[in-house]
């Protein structure tokens, strides 16, 4: 187990180095080069030369790369061109928001996706199954930003049940320690602030979680169908075990393996989707900040954020692989 984790962490290093090379080259390939990106299109040649010297863009490319790598390793990703604050700080300030949103979306997707898939499998061929399959098909083909629009229009604009945008009502004067707004409200005892933050999470969370929900439901349905006819399940039934025991210990435990893999794969989708969802709901997380960064060619932010996201994404996939061992003893042994 520990060797598996160690090996995977070792494999992470070349991936991150490769990614850093790509990003380094990417910055050099920006239209007009990094100096123009810093100063804007109308910069004078003198100003460009000055910036090139100050940032070291005029040195040999290999030397530039090592300087850049050295900075990254010491945690210095430069300053945002838009806010002039360190990239790391910007990320740390916004990441909790995105994490809160993706966690909500993931809970929603798992909490409804697995039961829906199981229910469809138990009713295979009947209308319940067909409805579930149709629903999950719709979930896959509807673009996340369109779904965000529909939800916003129905539940916020028309019905007025939920807030249209933001993370919290600005009139609420809440204390923030961790920037996880719901959590902050809970620990400070400001329950109305926590509740308000939660209501702001519902629409973006549901929009973001629907595609993963659809995919999880499909995979669960398929794998329950496969497992419930397995010999050991028949044996368990023949032995007269309680249906609940058969479901939890025999069917679900085995059926959830493919679902776990899918979960890992969904995370990339969730992060991409977060950019779009946060844009629609003006939710102040890394997604909407990335959007601003893209438009203003804020390359230190883009560079830093992409590396952070890649590291987090890889670590989560590692966690998924490790959780295999926990669910399936066969993996642990081999």
């Amino acid at each position, binding site marked *: 187990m520990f060797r598996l984790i160690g090996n995977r962490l070792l494999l992470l290093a070349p991936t991150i180095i*490769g990614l850093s090379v790509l990003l380094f080259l990417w910055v050099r390939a920006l239209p007009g080069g990094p100096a123009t990106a810093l100063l804007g299109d109308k910069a004078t040649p003198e100003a460009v030369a000055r910036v090139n010297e100050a940032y070291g863009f005029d040195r040999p490319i290999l030397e530039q790369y090592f300087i850049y790598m050295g900075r990254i390793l010491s945690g210095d990703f430069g300053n945002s061109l838009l806010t002039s604050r360190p990239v790391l700080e910007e990320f740390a300030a916004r990441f909790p928001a995105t994490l809160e949103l993706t966690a909500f979306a993931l809970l929603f997707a798992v909490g409804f996706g697995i039961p829906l898939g199981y229910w469809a499998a138990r009713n295979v061929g009947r209308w319940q199954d067909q409805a579930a399959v149709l629903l999950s098909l719709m979930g896959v083909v509807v*673009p996340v930003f369109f779904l965000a629009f529909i939800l916003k229009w129905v539940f916020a604009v028309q019905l007025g049940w939920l807030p249209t945008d933001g993370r919290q009502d600005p009139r609420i004067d809440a204390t923030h320690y961790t920037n996880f707004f719901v959590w902050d409200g809970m620990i400070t005892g400001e329950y109305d602030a926590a509740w308000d933050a939660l209501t702001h999470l519902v629409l973006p969370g549901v929009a973001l979680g629907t595609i993963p929900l659809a995919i999880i439901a499909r995979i669960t349905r398929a794998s329950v169908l496969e497992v419930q006819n397995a010999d050991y399940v028949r044996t368990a039934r023949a032995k007269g075990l309680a249906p609940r025991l058969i479901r939890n210990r025999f069917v679900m435990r085995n059926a959830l393996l493919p679902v776990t893999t899918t979960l890992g794969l969904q995370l*990339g989708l969730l992060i991409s989707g977060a950019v779009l969802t946060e844009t*629609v709901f003006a939710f102040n997380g890394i997604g909407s900040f990335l959007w601003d960064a893209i438009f203003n060619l804020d390359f230190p932010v883009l560079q830093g954020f992409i590396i952070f996201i890649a590291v987090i994404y890889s670590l989560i996939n590692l966690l998924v692989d490790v959780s295999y061992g926990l669910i399936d003893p066969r993996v642990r042994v081999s």
Partner: protein
Amino acid sequence: MSVNLPPAAGGPTGDLTPGGSPAPDPASGGLLPGTTGTVVAAGPGRDDGGPVKGTSVWKDAFLRLRRNPAAIAGAVIVALFLLVAVLAPLIAPYPGEAVPGAREITPGHIPGPGELPQFPLGLDRFGGDVLSKLIWGAQSSLMIGVVSTALGLAGGMVLGLLAGAFGGWVDGVVMRIVDILLSVPNLLLAVSIAAVLGQGPYAVMIAIGVSQVPIFARLLRSSMLSQKSADYVLAAQTLGLSRRTITMSHVLPNSVGPVIVQATLTLATAVIDAAALSFLGLGGGRPETAEWGRMLTYAQSELGIAPWLAFLPGLCIAVTALGFTLLGESLREALDPKSRAR
């Protein structure tokens, strides 16, 4: 969108003609060279009764597709949108960027569907005819979807072929590159590429195409690896065929099944991603440009007074994606050896 695929839907492995050589089936009509040899008809259970005829995997799949209502629905949707895209210059009432109804727009009111007879689906905030824009949008969306998928497919096939055919260090290097590309979420990768290339439809095509390369490369490689250990490869080696012939005429054609299925499904993702990129504003061009994603960008601020501006293009994206998904899923089912056996 990530999709689970059967390990190799290329056909039953080791499916040899009685002579023992993996001869390409003449009945395949040259659709793909070297498709698996004859599929021995499963005796009395076959409903076509007649003499035992050899059919290729692809022909068989096509027959099964024709009997699947989901496949037909998918094909009809795709054909319809393709037709609209191709005939756009003939059927669209107005040019894509025209604003024929600019004078009908007043602050706080935009004429909706059915309000004015000359604009059946209403107007947008610039005074553009929504119907015309949806029709022109079909053209640009499908164009981006098809071109980017073709790019991704070509790139991914080359990388996957290199990795699968040579193995060893070539495989190591190629797969490392693929891993690096996969470590960045798809849409972010596309956005970063588009940032370098500048805004515009070509940047979007290349960006989406490149972001698809890793999936195709991985899929072809793993499919080739599983085919390489098949009996027919051993048979071909015993016959003294060169490695190149074996790879190109036997292993590769038998490995492309899952890749083609994925390509069909990827068309759906590509249409959605193209809309997402132009929604984010990377499509370039003027604000009035007729693009489904772009129409949604400008629908945001009018959501309260003109919701159809968001619903109609969104519906077009979803239905197009549904068409490709239905087609891809049915194709996968038709090519799946497990369901073929039934």
